[in-house]
């Protein structure tokens, strides 16, 4: 930075000091003087009058401008600021205070030549002005014009600066748009026509260099020291803290932080790390045993019965199969499931799997509620659908009447939307189990709504990645009825129906069942564990797919497990518009859809592209005595099941990935 010119120029007691201490003094002086600022010279009175007239409108902007104006450590900037303050119509008040406040150490001349460089500071301010207050700028501009001639006339002392300002004022509208203009020396030439400007001295060059140096942007961000000091002083003037000098350092730090630019790395680390800290806090809650006041009784209760499955054991077996999450993640899932069981009235619970998404994954738990613990949500949903049906019926009535009256009416389309297939009751078919999802262990579990057949039918047609947010819309063609939660539920239903398998004989049908006629239609949908199951040797499990059976009901093309004739009208609908419907019934007859019955072996599954839909493996070929038989689905990549023959182990379909690739609907 250049040396400050030594000799104070009495003719130009311009405010300027580059030393921060002096600046701070000046600032304090400024502040002291501003509120009761009294215009010094008579010359400034008329200006004030003009100024005050329009000052009431934009007081706030004035304050900011004024603070901006005072924020600079350079006098040229301050001059600019003063000029701007005039724009803001506080100019008169500012001027004298600044003038009297500051020791006149610098000649005004250097800054004239540095006018070209000054302007960018102005430009940035202008930009800020514009950004902040678009309207104000126009008002300010209009305000420019008035004081300017006065300025030129009256302030002979400051003539040079004024001219400079006038030059910049005339280029006012350009300043924010074209920084190149300000840097050009043409302005200097422009200004010099009416001024007696001395030739630039080496000192001025030094000053220019200093200013250029201050204006250069720092390496880390787009902020320059110049702008930062402006910002800092603005902040101080806005807040008017007591004894600002003593808290200057912290104010400086805060001003930097508030600029929304990357700052010193030491500051930056803290807020970022908080994300992982929050996660750790949440997960810590999982590990704490519920209720410190409970005594030993609870320990006994817990040991005997709990709905939470032994996740660690299954994780171990899946690891043998080459599939699975790491052991600590499995443990966290276990604890999270335990939390779920405590919160909800759950009879059986199972970890279904994990579905990966773009910005988050889903952990899915398959759950059965205890008897009689139906949710209230379902009733509300039913009411809504009933309301919908009533309005549809009314629509039909009105339609008939209209046709009779006027012959000129636009012909009504004869297309009727296909009848809505009712969704299956809870605890049966596709809605046999309830599903809860959460994004990470530690987050609250959200219940997924029941799936409707329409959603399943549509889910078969589209293929979308999951984003990880349940309320995200599913934008696809054909349009999917529902958001991501519904899509997720539909995919879970399809995967479950296709890939839940067990060794032959593990499950069997109950002995006491109803009429055969009903069964022939609906198919058996209940099964129970076979107490006499002895286990099939692992090698046999691997060799033949006939040793595995599905234990979930197949989903029909209709979207349900049990077929429903969509043309069967309920009583309400039959009362209205009977004639129309009878005519229709004759034409459309829907065939009953039949799917493979429960407990069909895998060998009868349809092939995909001439390849079997299942692949079997031994987990370890080196030690077949202790290895696990693993079955992998080729239809849904990520679905695995394992079995160990003699150990009466249930096989679990484990979905570790999102289904994708080329697959056909199940």
């Amino acid at each position: 930075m250049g040396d400050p010119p030594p000799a104070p120029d009495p003719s130009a007691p311009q405010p300027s000091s580059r030393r921060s201490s002096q600046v701070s003094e000046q600032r304090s002086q400024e502040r002291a003087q501003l509120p009761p600022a009294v215009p010094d010279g008579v010359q400034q009175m008329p200006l004030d009058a003009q100024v005050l007239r329009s000052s009431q409108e934009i007081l706030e902007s004035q304050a900011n401008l004024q603070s901006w104006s005072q924020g600079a450590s350079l006098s040229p900037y301050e001059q600019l600021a003063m000029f701007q303050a005039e724009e803001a119509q506080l100019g008169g008040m500012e001027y004298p205070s600044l003038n009297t406040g500051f020791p006149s150490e610098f000649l005004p001349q250097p800054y004239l030549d540095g006018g070209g460089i000054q302007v960018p500071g102005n430009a940035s301010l202008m930009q800020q002005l514009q950004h902040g207050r678009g309207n104000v700028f126009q008002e300010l501009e209009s305000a420019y014009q008035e004081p300017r001639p006065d300025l030129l006339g009256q302030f002979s002392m400051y003539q040079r600066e004024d001219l400079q300002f006038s030059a910049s004022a005339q280029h006012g509208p350009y300043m924010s748009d074209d920084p190149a203009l300000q840097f050009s020396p043409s302005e200097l030439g422009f200004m010099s026509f009416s001024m007696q400007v001395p030739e630039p001295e080496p000192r001025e060059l030094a000053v220019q260099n200093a200013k250029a140096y201050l204006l250069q942007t720092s390496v880390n961000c787009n902020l320059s020291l110049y702008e930062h000091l402006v910002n800092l002083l603005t902040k101080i003037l806005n807040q008017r803290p007591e004894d600002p000098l003593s808290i200057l350092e912290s104010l400086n730090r805060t001003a930097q932080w508030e600029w929304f630019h990357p700052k010193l790395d030491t500051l930056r680390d803290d807020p970022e790390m908080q994300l992982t800290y929050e996660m750790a806090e949440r997960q810590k809650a999982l590990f704490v045993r519920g209720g410190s006041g409970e005594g030993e009784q609870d320990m006994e209760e817990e040991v005997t019965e709990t709905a939470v499955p032994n996740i660690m054991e299954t994780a171990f077996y899946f690891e043998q199969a080459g599939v699975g999450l790491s052991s600590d993640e499995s443990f966290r899932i276990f604890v999270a499931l335990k939390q779920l069981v405590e919160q909800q009235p759950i009879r059986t619970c199972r970890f279904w799997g994990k579905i990966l998404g773009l910005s988050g994954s889903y952990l899915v738990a398959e759950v059965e509620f205890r008897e009689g613990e139906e949710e209230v949500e379902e009733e509300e949903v039913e009411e809504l659908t009933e309301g919908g049906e009533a309005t549809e019926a009314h629509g039909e009535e009105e339609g008939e009447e209209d046709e009779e009256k006027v012959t000129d009416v636009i012909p009504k389309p004869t297309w009727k939307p296909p009848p809505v297939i009712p969704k299956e009751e809870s605890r049966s078919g596709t809605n046999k189990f309830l599903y809860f999802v959460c994004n990470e262990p530690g987050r609250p579990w959200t219940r997924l709504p029941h799936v409707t057949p329409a959603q399943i039918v549509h889910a078969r047609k589209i293929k979308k990645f999951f984003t990880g947010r349940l309320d995200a819309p599913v934008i696809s063609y054909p349009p999917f009825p529902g958001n991501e939660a519904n899509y997720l539920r539909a995919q879970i239903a399809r995967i479950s129906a296709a890939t839940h398998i067990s060794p032959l004989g593990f499950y069997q049908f109950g002995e006491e069942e109803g009429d055969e006629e009903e069964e022939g239609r609906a198919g058996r949908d209940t099964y129970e564990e076979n107490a006499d199951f002895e286990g099939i040797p692992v090698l046999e499990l691997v060799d033949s797919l006939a040793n595995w059976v599905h234990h979930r009901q197949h989903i029909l093309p209709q979207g349900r497990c049990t077929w429903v004739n969509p043309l069967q009208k309920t009583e309400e609908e039959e009362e209205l518009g009977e004639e129309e419907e009878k005519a229709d019934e004759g034409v459309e007859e829907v065939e009953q859809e039949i799917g493979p019955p429960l407990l069909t072996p895998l060998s009868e599954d349809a092939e995909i592209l001439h390849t079997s839909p299942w692949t079997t493996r031994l987990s370890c070929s080196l030690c077949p005595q202790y290895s696990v038989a693993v079955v992998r689905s080729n239809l849904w990549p990520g679905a695995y099941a394992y079995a160990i023959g003699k150990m009466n182990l249930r096989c679990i379909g484990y979905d570790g990935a999102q289904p994708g690739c080329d697959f056909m609907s199940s």
Partner: protein
Amino acid sequence: MDAESLLLSLELASGSGQGLSPDRRASLLTSLMLVKRDYRYDRVLFWGRILGLVADYYIAQGLSEDQLAPRKTLYSLNCMEWSLLPPATDEMMVQTSVVKGRFTGDPSHEYEHTELQKVNDGEKVFEEEVVVQIKEETRLVSIIDQIDKAVSVIPRGALFKTPFGPVHVNRTFEGLSLSQAKKLSSYFHFREPVELKNKTLLEKADLDPSLDFLDSLEHDIPKVEP
């Protein structure tokens, strides 16, 4: 995954659900050491696993001193015996693009593909059906190459380019900071740069020639198939 830090990398990558059983892990650790010794590689990376109907392929890659030089790819069916795969060529890509479906798991399996070829017989031009046989090994090679070109990723700063040309591992690389790790621009494709020369001079001015010599992930546009 580097053979030296295999276990740690497997733990970190376990979130996707794919992992290795303990016996595979143990055999990998052993056999990759031997591969490194026998083939004199500077680094051996466990590339991954390709699932097949009958068996799975385990793929490893060996790198020499210059990290950007073409890598040697090896495959194994049991993680113990490794066989070298031929380098990928463009004809292989074209040839294998017609084969769809899963891998069978048998490296000597041949896919049959019938093509209509025009045969000039004097003045007549007629089409003949030619059955082209494509080996599964070829398909494996081209698939691995395609996957590498598309998704092989390395963070900025992990490699640096010496003035002589070769690319070395940066031993002073400590990892990306959290803010940097969230930006796509801090990751590069680990392959010969294609887009670099298309950058404007202004963009190139900001780059550090020793660190930014690869394509960034920022400007990748996925191909959308109708």
